[in-house]
């Protein structure tokens, strides 16, 4: 009897230990985020103002705002997404719905995507500079920057979309087939909505990586901080602006902090919005 009690308490202690460890991990992870955010707010909030959001940078970014930088960033991101998302999701559909998992084609595509995902961004930058800027003659432009980013986003978007589509239960596809719904219709009305949160999560990781990119953009979309007039103009991305301010411009720390705060807030807003959209899409589609 005492042995059993002893055993019981031992188990209890172990449970508590594990639980404590899990809570500690959660605390640490969120502490990193809170610390970073607090540091940004502390350093950048005082510099933030309406003028900062609506003016173009002056005096190498020490004065003025980031309006032109924001416009360039959004344009680069749009070009990248408009190019990469259809390609990536179409590839994911091919890999999950039309090709068996073990087929040579599927394996080859998947392998090349893995390799592409591991390529450092500076390599994409050099490739983008050589191919889009020089070979295709796009020069330093938002277009070549966006297309370079699109190449970088392809593996992330494809693999997350593939995982999401694969996670949709096979019974959905079988039931759809039994009801005589065509493959395309089942894909659009059933499988895509069911996978919507996964697709949105992938999209968010992609957007996050695109917004954070500096190395690939320095050689493609360039360093010009003027308001872009067209997609063929060079435009400085927000992350590159932050890098330049903090590393190359003496006295650029305050605007760098403020710009970083804007970047993080932008990411947070996009995250929350996309998650909300994805879940509501999933609920509506599947419940009706």
């Amino acid at each position, binding site marked *: 009897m005492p042995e059993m009690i002893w055993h019981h308490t031992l188990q209890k202690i172990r449970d508590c230990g594990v639980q404590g460890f899990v809570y500690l991990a959660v605390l640490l992870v969120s502490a990193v985020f809170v610390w970073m955010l607090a540091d940004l707010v502390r350093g950048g909030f005082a510099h933030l103002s309406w003028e900062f959001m609506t003016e173009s940078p002056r005096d190498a970014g020490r004065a003025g705002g980031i309006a032109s930088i924001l416009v360039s960033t959004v344009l680069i991101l749009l070009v990248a997404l*408009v190019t990469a998302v259809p390609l990536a999701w179409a590839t994911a559909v091919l890999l999950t719905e039309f090709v068996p998992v073990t087929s040579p084609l599927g394996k080859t595509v998947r392998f090349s995507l893995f390799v592409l995902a591991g390529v450092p961004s500076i390599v994409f930058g050099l490739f983008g500079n050589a191919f889009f800027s020089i070979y295709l003659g796009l*020069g330093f432009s938002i277009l070549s920057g966006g297309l370079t980013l699109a190449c970088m986003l392809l593996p992330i978007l494809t693999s997350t979309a593939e995982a999401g589509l694969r996670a949709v239960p096979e019974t959905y596809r079988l039931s759809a087939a039994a009801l005589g719904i065509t493959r395309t219709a089942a894909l659009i009305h059933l499988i895509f909505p069911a996978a919507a949160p996964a697709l949105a999560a992938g999209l968010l990781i992609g957007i996050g990586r695109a917004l954070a990119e500096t190395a690939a953009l320095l050689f493609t979309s*360039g360093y010009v901080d003027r308001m872009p007039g*067209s997609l063929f103009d060079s435009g400085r991305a927000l992350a590159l602006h932050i890098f330049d301010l903090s590393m190359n411009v003496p*006295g650029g720390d305050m605007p760098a902090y403020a710009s970083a705060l804007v970047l993080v807030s932008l990411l947070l807003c996009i995250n929350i919005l996309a998650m909300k959209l994805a879940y509501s899409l999933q609920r509506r*589609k599947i419940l009706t």
Partner: protein
Amino acid sequence: MFRKNSYLLICLILLSGVAAGLVLLSTAPASAATQRLVLTGSSTVAPLVSEIARRFESLYPGVRIDVQAGGSSRGINDVRKGVADIGMVSRALKPDEDDLRAFTIALDGISLIVHASNPVVSLSKQQVVSIFTGNVMRWSAVGGPDTRITVVNKAEGRSTLELFLDYFQLKNSMIKPHIIIGDNAQGIKTVAGNRNAIGYVSIGAAEYETRRGMPVRLLALDGAAASISNIQNGNFPLLRPLNLVISHEPQDLARQFLTFAQSPQVRDLVKAQYFVPVDAH
């Protein structure tokens, strides 16, 4: 009901994307009709030239000047290949670069910096060489505390590095660095965060940061204090010209810009970026 709506929504988003793209594309010919000048090169010179370009654009409407950073070597390559009209090079041209012509727009000195808590105030040429080649490993050997020296060197291809090596007659392979850095501000932050570090950066940037309370100190070199006034009167030995370079006879616009960048009209911009105007001494 919902299905139709969300279809409509997706179609709308796609359409608006395409429409936005078309609008932006269609505006391209209009902007291509304006005159354009592309400058690439040294990231030290890029912020200054961006400001000069902004003033030039406001004086000559219809001109667009694109300034791209990436290092002096890239400026020289791009000018030779014709990718850029003008290159930015933050050092004097070398003998094997005599195919290019340089126009000096400003001067910049390079100073050794240490943490503000370090008691060392001056180093001789020989001491600097011993520290950077790893022969002297502790501060106590040059009059400091008994701690290990952290040597901060510049990355390959930076013209600050080339100038430093040239002045001290070193080769980069002889230097035993503990930290390798890129731009000036990064060097200052690295030294400010390490009590035992020694590095070298642009004097203008360092003076500015020390005035704002960054804990670094500029070291005197061979008895000459590292200050902007000593660069101006030519007393500080370690200085470099900031150049704009071209490979062939410039077109009208490029020539106009080169003249403008050397004119007294931009002297306040040069000073605002903590460099020394050329005609000052």
